[in-house]
């Protein structure tokens, strides 16, 4: 839908047993933005835009071929990275809310921009967002804001379990701004406190998910020790070598993304399939035959073991592109999650 021509050549790396089907890399967004600034200027002047990579010297080249023979070339360096995947089964969440992003933005506007965390509490008959203050704050100095909404305001409202989840508002604001720009409604999937909350938007063109950890009372003591650490995922490249990675159903693989296309044998229940490189038609999220490509985002360390993983999928109907970029199946270990977020720093049983 976006590209006139899309070509990926898998590079096989002799030191890895399986072919590497993807090039996980990251670019600084601020460096890419100037390339595509001023959309209307681009629309008028640019005839073609070509994007190419040369993995050997770690460059991505954006070339804008403009009118009158003008060619603008941007060479940006990328860094290889191991993308983090949040392991999370949206469809298993008892609470699902779906609402237009405008409503959420209207709600968030009542909180000061300095507000770090907010608490969402739901019962089958009411929804409430309130500002979260840590236990040791001086209540005589902080202003507390609460917003009560009726379930009727939501396009879809399902509350299976009464819950109160606290998450980072600042992270959410970014997604809200994005979804307002695209005009797509936001879906919120969550469970009890301690379990992650997912905000996602889905469209014909793209799919974006923001998964946030939520605070849990018992977690607070463990905060300082538990950190979400990219190194946990670092061994993923050699992962397929590990015996634990062999069984797709095993909870062991919950931490480690499979790199090649081991087709998920049981897509239901535990696994959330994001893309199916070679197998078509099995997609738990219900879009048959549509592999999704993802560029995994960064996970950031934050207090209380907060993290987010923001990934965008471009939905393409072209089958042949499936062998291109990739990501793999993810298995969730939702039954071993307990009170911690999906990225566990302790070894899985």
């Amino acid at each position, binding site marked *: 839908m976006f590209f006139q021509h899309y070509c990926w050549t898998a590079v096989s790396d002799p030191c890895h047993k399986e072919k590497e089907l993807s090039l996980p890399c990251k670019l600084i967004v601020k460096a890419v933005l100037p390339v595509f600034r001023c959309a209307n200027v681009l629309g008028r002047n640019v005839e073609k835009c070509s994007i190419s990579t040369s993995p050997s010297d770690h460059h991505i080249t954006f070339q804008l071929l403009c009118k009158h023979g003008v060619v603008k070339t941007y060479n940006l360096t990328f860094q290889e990275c191991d993308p983090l995947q949040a392991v999370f089964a949206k469809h298993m969440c008892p609470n699902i809310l779906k609402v237009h992003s405008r409503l959420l933005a209207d709600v968030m*506007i*009542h909180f*000061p921009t300095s507000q770090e965390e907010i608490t969402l509490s739901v019962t089958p008959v009411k929804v409430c967002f309130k500002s979260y203050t840590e236990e040791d704050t001086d*209540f*005589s*100095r*902080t*202003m*507390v*804001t*609460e*917003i*009560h*909404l*009726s379930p*009727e*305001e939501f396009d879809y409202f399902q509350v299976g379990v009464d819950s109160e989840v606290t998450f980072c508002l600042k992270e959410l604001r970014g997604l809200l701004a994005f979804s307002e720009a695209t005009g797509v409604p936001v879906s919120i999937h969550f469970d009890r406190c301690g379990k992650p909350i997912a905000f996602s938007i889905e469209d014909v063109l793209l799919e974006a998910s923001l998964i946030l950890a939520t605070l849990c009372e018992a977690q607070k003591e463990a905060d300082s020790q538990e950190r979400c650490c990219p190194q946990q995922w670092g061994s993923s490249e050699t992962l397929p070598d590990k015996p634990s990675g062999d069984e797709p159903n095993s909870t062991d693989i919950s931490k480690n993304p499979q790199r090649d296309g081991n087709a998920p044998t049981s897509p239901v229940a535990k696994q959330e399939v994001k893309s199916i490189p070679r197998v078509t038609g099995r997609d738990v999220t219900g879009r048959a035959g549509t592999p999704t490509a993802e560029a995994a985002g960064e996970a950031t360390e934050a207090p209380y073991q907060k993290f987010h993983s923001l990934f965008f999928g471009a939905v393409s109907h072209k089958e042949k592109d499936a062998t291109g970029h990739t990501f793999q199946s993810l298995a969730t270990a939702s039954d071993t999650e307990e009170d911690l977020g999906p990225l566990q720093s302790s070894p899985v049983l």
Partner: protein
Amino acid sequence: MRFRAKIVDLACLNNFSRVINTISKLTKTCTLRLTVCKLYFILSDKVANGGASMWCELCQGNFFDEFQMEGVAAEHNEIYLELVPENLSRALKTAHSAKAVKIKLTNKHCPCLRVAVELPSLSSSSRIVTHDIPVGVIPRRIWNDFREPTMPDFDVSIYLPVLKIMKSVVERMKNLSNFIVIEANLSGEMNLKIETDLVSVTTHFKDLGNPPWASEEGCQSSAQGRNLESMAEACIDIKKLQQLLAGQQVNPTKALCNIVSKRIVHFILLHEDVSLQYFIPALA
């Protein structure tokens, strides 16, 4: 002690918001005095404020559709609260389209002003946003600290120039110097002066007019018999003046200042339903 008030009219709400915004630009914390008929926002001239003080008076009937208050005691039917006006301003900021705003004094964990804004929503029931603004209750024994300041024995009283112009002049001067000299005479002339090692700038205003204060006993005695051309001047902190001017969102009905030479400048800004007095002491 009880206090409940409600605003239903949008114009009154916007008006009230504007007053709160102005106050919040002048000071971080202030005292809110509630009586049966009026609200006062008071800043007393402590050293912490740089000696500046403020007295803002509103008639509650002009803003609130419902207003009930019960003071600390029958013979002292008033409430004095210390609050951060910025919090109140923030709570009212997003209430443009509110159906109603209720303010109530509560004491759950600590004394708070609970502002409940009822907003229209797509569904049958409204959206309710509550803001709990922490306040401090000021004990009666120090109520005397917050009395209305007396009108100083001024040398010159003069109407201010158009505030927008004065504001832009002062803002530019603020980049050059920390202090500004205001001088004026009884012939309607005012000068704003700054002086640094490198540069001195003076802006002259003419034909401003001088308010005709009715002579009261003992008052304005220093103004009478004064040479009409002679300037009274005071050197004040430019930031305070800039804050005062920047906080004015609507043109006041009357704006004037009284200058006590080398002592204090007393600004009076009158709107239809609000009066604001601001005192800036002169620096040595």
